[in-house]
Structures are given as structure tokens and as C-alpha cells.
């Protein structure tokens, strides 16, 4: 098949074939990351701008390395938090950047829908590096890639996602992605962190962590950001970790060969005990490593696709 996306805005509108195509493409790029000279000339002459309205060292670095390994010129712009504060609208900022003729803008923004907004207004390609609490497609793809690496496939697997589902962009993209690839998704957390109607996106909802992880093949723990998500959702991190942290004991409820994932950065002792975070079942660093390959694949596919639109 061929897949020439102009933008990568979310997983929702991708087909299973397209997702698999991205994962397969990423397999080829993964090899480069193990070479002594980790660079190919594929995107030579392409300009990739990482426009980050929110600090995210991990995702930004991953996209930056991905771009550089493909020989693209990668520029990072860290912008003020919102257009209102800054006095310049997102459209004006984006148009100014576009006037410098980048080929791809990779954007992280605190507002859900900001990447759709950008894509509707610009001629260059847009890759969503996380918009508000909406989608984070590259994270979901690297998660699927990592599961596939460890389990060989996703079909029929049970994946449990635990934590602040309401304020997570990772969850929405993962629910779409995992469903499309045939996995079964469970979400769990205190009710304050489970948004109304989440089950309609394709998951089972649990209020009890033990039940949610029983016989799971894969457990994804979400980062709790107590300071950012409002203090009304949980009484304290201490209590949260008592009822919703993954530790050596409750991990035994999952399948013996279950893998433990985390989009990072990990709050040790909050959502994940150190023994699990460092334990044999954790694949957290594989996720990070695979993130580069996935983002190389996205940049490659979008760069090829973008040009095709012009021809």
C-alpha cells in the first residue's frame, strides 16, 4: 500500500493498515539508531520546526533527534503559553513561521484542537506532538510499536491504562490505536479522573486497579500531575498511591509476562513503585528508544506526502 499523509493530527482518522504501515516504516528506521553513524540523508534540505507551547523535554528531544538523524534541519521554538498572554494569535505566529518556508511544523500546544487549527490555516505539514487533552499520536504509535516488539502482535491483548484518564491526551490516542490493532482496552482511576462517556471511545471502565489489571498483558501507568490538574481531583498523592499505584504486589495479578509502560516522566512512588519502574517487566526505556524511530517514520512519511500534494 502507499500512505502519503499531509498531516499527522491524531490516530482517530487513521486506519489499521495505515497504522501498521507507520509501524513497519519505523522498523526500518530503528536500525539506523543502532549504527555508529546514526544519520541518513533522507530529509536533506527539509526544514522541521518544533513549535512547543508547552515544555516537553522528552517529546521535543525525540522529534529533534528524529529530524536530525534524517538530515532535516531541525529548529526548536519554545513559545509562550497562550496567544492571549502573548498578544499574538496562534495563526499569526504560525504564518510568520511558515513565511520562513519550513516543510513540517511539529507542534505541542496546551489547547485541544490547536493542531487541527494550524493544519486548516497553513500550507506546510503539521504533526501533532500533543494538543491539550485531545491526542498525542506519536506516543500511541510508539506504545503500539513497543507492545508489538515484546508481544509480537496486538490482536487479542488486554491493555490496562491507569491514572488521570480525563486529562490525558495519551489515553485518547491509545484507545483509538489499540482498538484499531485489535487489542482490548481497560481504563481505571478514581472517578474524578474518568471523563463521562470515555467507554464510548472503546474501552472498559474500572474503578478498582486490581480488577483492571487482572490478567492484563500490558499495563500503562499515566503520570499524575497533581499541581497542574487541579487539586480537586484527589485528596493527596499519598492516598492516590495507596489505591492507584502499581507495585510488586498488585502487578502479580497481571499475566506473568505482562509488560509495564509509562509515557514518562515517572513519578516514582506515586503511580509506580521504584521496584516496578526498575523491574524486569518494565519497558519504559524501550518506549523512549522506539519513540525516535516512530517519529522518524512520521517525518519521512509526511515529508514525502507533502511534496506529492504539490506535484
Amino acid at each position, binding site marked *: 500500500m502507499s500512505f502519503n499523509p499531509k498531516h499527522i493530527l491524531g490516530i482517530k482518522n487513521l486506519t489499521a493498515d495505515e497504522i501498521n504501515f507507520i509501524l513497519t516504516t519505523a522498523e526500518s528506521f530503528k536500525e539506523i539508531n543502532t549504527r555508529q553513524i546514526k544519520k541518513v540523508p533522507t530529509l536533506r534540505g527539509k526544514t522541521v520546526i518544533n513549535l512547543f507551547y508547552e515544555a516537553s523535554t522528552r517529546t521535543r528531544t525525540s522529534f529533534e533527534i528524529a529530524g536530525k538523524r534524517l538530515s532535516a534541519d531541525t529548529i526548536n521554538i519554545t513559545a509562550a503559553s*497562550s496567544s492571549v498572554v502573548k498578544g499574538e494569535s*496562534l495563526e499569526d505566529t504560525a504564518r510568520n513561521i511558515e513565511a520562513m518556508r519550513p516543510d513540517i511544523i511539529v507542534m505541542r500546544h496546551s489547547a*485541544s484542537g490547536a493542531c487541527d487549527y494550524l493544519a486548516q490555516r497553513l500550507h506546510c505539514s503539521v504533526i501533532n506532538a500533543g494538543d*491539550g487533552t485531545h491526542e498525542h499520536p506519536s506516543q500511541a504509535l510508539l506504545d503500539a510499536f513497543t507492545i508489538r516488539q515484546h508481544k509480537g502482535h496486538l490482536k487479542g491483548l488486554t491493555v490496562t491504562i491507569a491514572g488521570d484518564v480525563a486529562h490525558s491526551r495519551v489515553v485518547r490516542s491509545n484507545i483509538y490505536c489499540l482498538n484499531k490493532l485489535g487489542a482490548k482496552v481497560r481504563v481505571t482511576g478514581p472517578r474524578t479522573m474518568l*471523563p463521562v*462517556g470515555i467507554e*464510548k471511545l472503546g474501552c472498559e471502565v474500572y474503578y478498582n486497579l486490581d480488577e483492571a489489571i487482572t490478567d492484563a498483558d500490558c499495563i500503562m501507568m499515566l503520570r499524575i500531575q497533581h499541581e497542574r490538574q487541579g487539586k480537586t481531583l484527589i485528596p493527596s498523592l499519598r492516598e492516590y498511591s495507596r489505591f492507584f499505584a502499581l507495585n510488586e504486589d498488585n502487578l502479580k495479578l497481571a499475566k506473568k509476562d505482562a509488560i509495564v509502560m509509562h509515557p514518562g516522566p515517572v513519578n516514582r512512588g506515586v503511580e509506580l513503585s521504584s521496584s516496578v519502574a526498575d523491574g524486569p517487566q518494565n519497558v519504559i526505556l524501550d518506549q523512549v528508544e522506539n519513540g525516535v524511530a516512530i517519529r522518524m517514520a512520521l517525518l519521512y512519511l509526511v515529508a514525502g506526502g507533502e511534496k506529492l500534494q504539490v506535484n
Partner: protein
Amino acid sequence: MKTLIKNGRVIDPANKIDAACDVLIEDGVIQEVATNISVTADEIIDATGLLVAPGLVDIHTHMRDPGFEYKEDIISGTRAAAAGGVTSLTCMPNTNPVNDSCAVTQYIINKAKQQGSANIYPIASISKGMKGEILAEMGDLKEAGCVGFSDDGIPVTHGELLRRAFEYADTFSMPIVTHSEDLSITGSGCMHEGDVATELGLQGIPWVAEDAGTAREIMLAEFTGGRLHVCHVSTKGSVDLIRHAKARGVRVSCEATPHHFTLTDEAVRGYNTNAKMSPPLRSQDHVDAVRAGLADGTIDAIATDHAPHHYDEKNVEFPVAMNGIVGLESLLPLSLRLVADGLLGLNSLISLLTVQPATIMGIDRGTLSVGAVADIVLIDLEREWTYTAESLHSKSKNSPFLGWEMKGAAVKTLLAGKVVFER
């Protein structure tokens, strides 16, 4: 000066008239409504095939004048009103300066009289500066021409102040007009809390935020015996609370907007900032409840909450976009859909758009009674047209209905017997 409107179908709910007859106007005042009036008129308007109704009365608008004339002013706003068949409107006090003084009230009334195309009856603020601290000078404001008091989008949170507002306003037989919402429940929400918000990853505004506000305000009205008008009800709970309150004799009235009985939260998909408003567009069950409230008479008026915003204020990320849409020019065709849907008879609908809202605000308009000021609209019920930004007379074009095919339009609007709009 005599004007005769001939051959139309006259609907005047106040006088229970729905008949083919003529209307005679002399010096801006209605002289006679009867079949085959034969008189030598200076001007004859042929209303064959048209509906002749009292000019529409919209008791919820924002004219943005003074202070935000880049969004709308009294000239453009009343022109939009006339184009929509609206001859009388109230305007909310969230101007700059806030309408909490006779000076601002008189500025608005005078500007409308001198340069406007519709009558304006200002609603003044409940509290000085809409700060929720001290009552505005309600007696003075009534004398200056205000018809009600509201802090609109910034609901009074201070319980005692609101209690006193009901009591003090009632001293002058004036209603307290509320945007009923407990903002502490709303939090940082920017659309209706439900499946769509969850999918789009937007923070939700739960329906209980509106219900809690409505319940509190009904209780205060009941306790004080004051008069309450609840703006733009949008939830099942609000409609139910008002229905029950009315049944036990609470002096409460309410309005619904065309967007709340026409659209659901699905309209937000694509992060459409023109579908962002407060209260937010709700899910279908709430829309159905509002429509039921219109059908059974719980809801007393249809009002637009005409809220013009500049393009730049809507052309932003969804969570930071301004709330509200323009509504004066879509009021009539969207309301007529209720008749087409079989929810309301035409007479009931005209009543919801004229005499009922006028009565709530104590405005002596909305009828074709002999001796009344001749504010009249001629409506072509069959006229089909497209609602586009170019077709709007308002300065602002923020509407989720752009591109909609509409049926029914005001083709001639008369203000005190004088044609102020014609299409």
C-alpha cells in the same frame, strides 16, 4: 399621514387575531385592524401572501455600545434587528462602562432614538460595575428607562446581595434577570460536559452548574416574593425547576435561544469556535427538554442572546475563544422551524416572539392593539434564503449557522409606522 397594510394575514396573539385583514396606521399609531378597510391612505402596502405581525421583541441582546463598538454598535445592532424583524430589544449592561448609571442608560436610549432602527430598552446591572458588591441605583435607573436588572454573564455569587436585589428591585416592580450558573461548578469548562467533550479533549461544563444556579435563584425569588426572569435556559433541570416553580406560584419567567433549541454539542466538532457559547450547546436530551418547555408554555419567550464578537476573538484556539453568537438575523427562520417541526402553532410562536417577552420586561409593544405604536413586521413564510456572513447587517459574523438554508424572512419592518427595513 396614513398608511394602510392591505391583504395580509394578520396575527396578533395579544388580541387573539389570526385573520386576513387590513391594518390602518395613522401618525405611527395603529388606528384600526379590520377586513377591507377603505380609506384614502397616503401609502398603501400590499401584504398579499405575507404575514403581518407585531414587530418582534428580543429581550436578550448585547449591543456592545458603549465600549466595544468594534464588535457592534447601536446603529449596526438595531439595523441587524430590523433586518431580522425585531423592532424592540433589551440590551445587557456588560458594556464599558457598565450600564449601572443613568448616563449610560440615557446614552443608549438616545442614540437608538436618533440613529437606530429599533427601540432599545436597556437592562442595567444589579450591582455597581457588575462587581457583585453594592446594588446599582435601581430607582434612578428605572426612571432613566431601564426595564430590568442583570449582571448577566457574571452571576451574583453573594447570596445576601442577590436576596436584597430581588427585594429592592421589587420595590420598583422590576424583574431580576439572571444568567443562572454556579461558576464554581463550571470551573475551566468550555463546552457541554458529555461524550463530545470527552472525545475532543475539551474541559466540560456540567449541566448541574446551570441547574444549581437556576435552583438558587428560584428559591431566592420564592423567598423574597421578587420577580425572576431566567435567561437562556438550556438544561432539562432548569426547565423542570421552572415548571415546578411556576406551578407553586413563584414569580418566575424564562427564555430560550434559537441555538439552544436547534443545535447540540455535536456542532462543536472540528473545534468550531462559532459553536462556543455560554450556556454551552447541550446534548440532545437537553435540547429535547427545552423544546418540550417551549411546547408546554414553561418557557415564556424566545430571545437571541445576540452576542457579537470580532473575527479575531473567534479565530483562536477553542478554549480561549469568546463565548456567544450573533442571533438577531437568524431568530425568525430558526424559530419558524419549531412550527415546521409541528412543535408549536404559528400563533403560539408569534406570541413567544412578541407579546410574551414584551410583558416580561413591561414593554408596551408586541401587539397590534388600536392605539399601540405601529411596530410591525411583514413576514414571508415561504421565502428561502442562505444565511451567509455577507447577508448579515451586524458588524460581527460569529454564527454556527453560516451557510444554512433558511426558510422565512422579514421582508418589511415598520417602526412607528415607518419602514426601517425592506428586502
